[in-house]
């Protein structure tokens, strides 16, 4: 990181190679749009390049980058709200899981869609806490840094998110099963 702060392009390349994918995945899940996730991910790494000297080694690099990404994603979500921008989930192509067997593929696809919809219905902080914990593998103190709150608050967010997600999935599952 110190080398990135000194303007070392090769160090930046190594940094982006290591962190681009998790950041992009997190943003895609949070924004539910690959195109917007690409924009925000690019902006995130531009900020990393420009502000590398302000990085404090007390937090892990991944935590710092995720915090930048989240701030930018929130801006994007706010802009959607204020401009009343019409937003739709990405088409199904983006939610197709990988499988060789058609029946399994269909089942996985349905589950993936249900999970994605259920996550999208959660408030942003709960979505972030859930994704950072269960998909990105960040610890609760690290999530607290990204969300700028206490570890207790993260615990509470996770508890509510898990319980709501269960309820949502059960109700969505019931709806899809109903003829």
């Amino acid at each position, binding site marked *: 990181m110190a080398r990135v702060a*000194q*303007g070392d*392009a090769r160090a*930046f*390349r190594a940094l*982006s190679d290591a962190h*681009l*994918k998790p950041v*992009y*995945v997190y943003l*895609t*899940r949070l924004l539910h749009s*690959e195109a917007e996730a*690409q924009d925000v*991910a*690019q902006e995130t*790494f*531009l900020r990393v*390049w*420009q502000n*590398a000297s302000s990085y404090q080694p007390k937090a892990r690099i991944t935590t710092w980058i995720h915090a930048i990404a989240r701030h930018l994603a929130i801006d994007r979500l706010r802009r959607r709200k204020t401009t009343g921008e019409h937003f739709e989930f990405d088409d199904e192509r*983006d*939610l*197709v*899981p*990988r499988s060789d067997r058609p029946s399994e593929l269909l089942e*996985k696809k349905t*589950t*993936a869609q249900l*999970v*994605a919809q*259920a*996550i999208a219905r959660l408030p942003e902080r709960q979505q972030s806490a*859930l*994704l950072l*914990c*269960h*998909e990105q*593998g*960040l*610890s*609760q103190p690290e999530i607290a840094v990204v969300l700028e709150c206490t570890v207790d608050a993260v615990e509470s967010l*996770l508890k509510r998110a*898990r319980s709501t*997600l*269960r309820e949502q*999935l059960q109700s969505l599952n019931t709806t899809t099963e109903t003829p």
Partner: protein
Amino acid sequence: MSPLDRDPWIDSAIGSLPELDVPAELRRNVAQIPAQHQAWTFPTIFGLKSSWAWAICGALGLVCGLSLDGEDFAEAGSPTFAQEVEFGSDALDVNVADLADSASEQASLSTLAQLAWTSEWTDALDLTQDE
């Protein structure tokens, strides 16, 4: 992360989400960031890098600027100085005109003022009071 932090049911639900690959275009764009946005850094001065050196130079510049102002200020006859003498005399309850009378008749107010601005200001006052 402790096992208590995890919830296998939720892990399995989130694990069902499809894997995502980073688009080649995004990878390319991110890789080009250093070339397109050269990070601006403070030029090195006296072997000292960056903002500290500039901060020191700025502070020195400020001090020099202030001392120059002080010299200008001390110039006798300048309206600013005359005002200052007036203010000072009011504060000390000494009449500038009396001071001028007590001193040599030839001494002009500006000469006295020049004298007063130096460390002899208090001495001059004492002399006047004695007289």
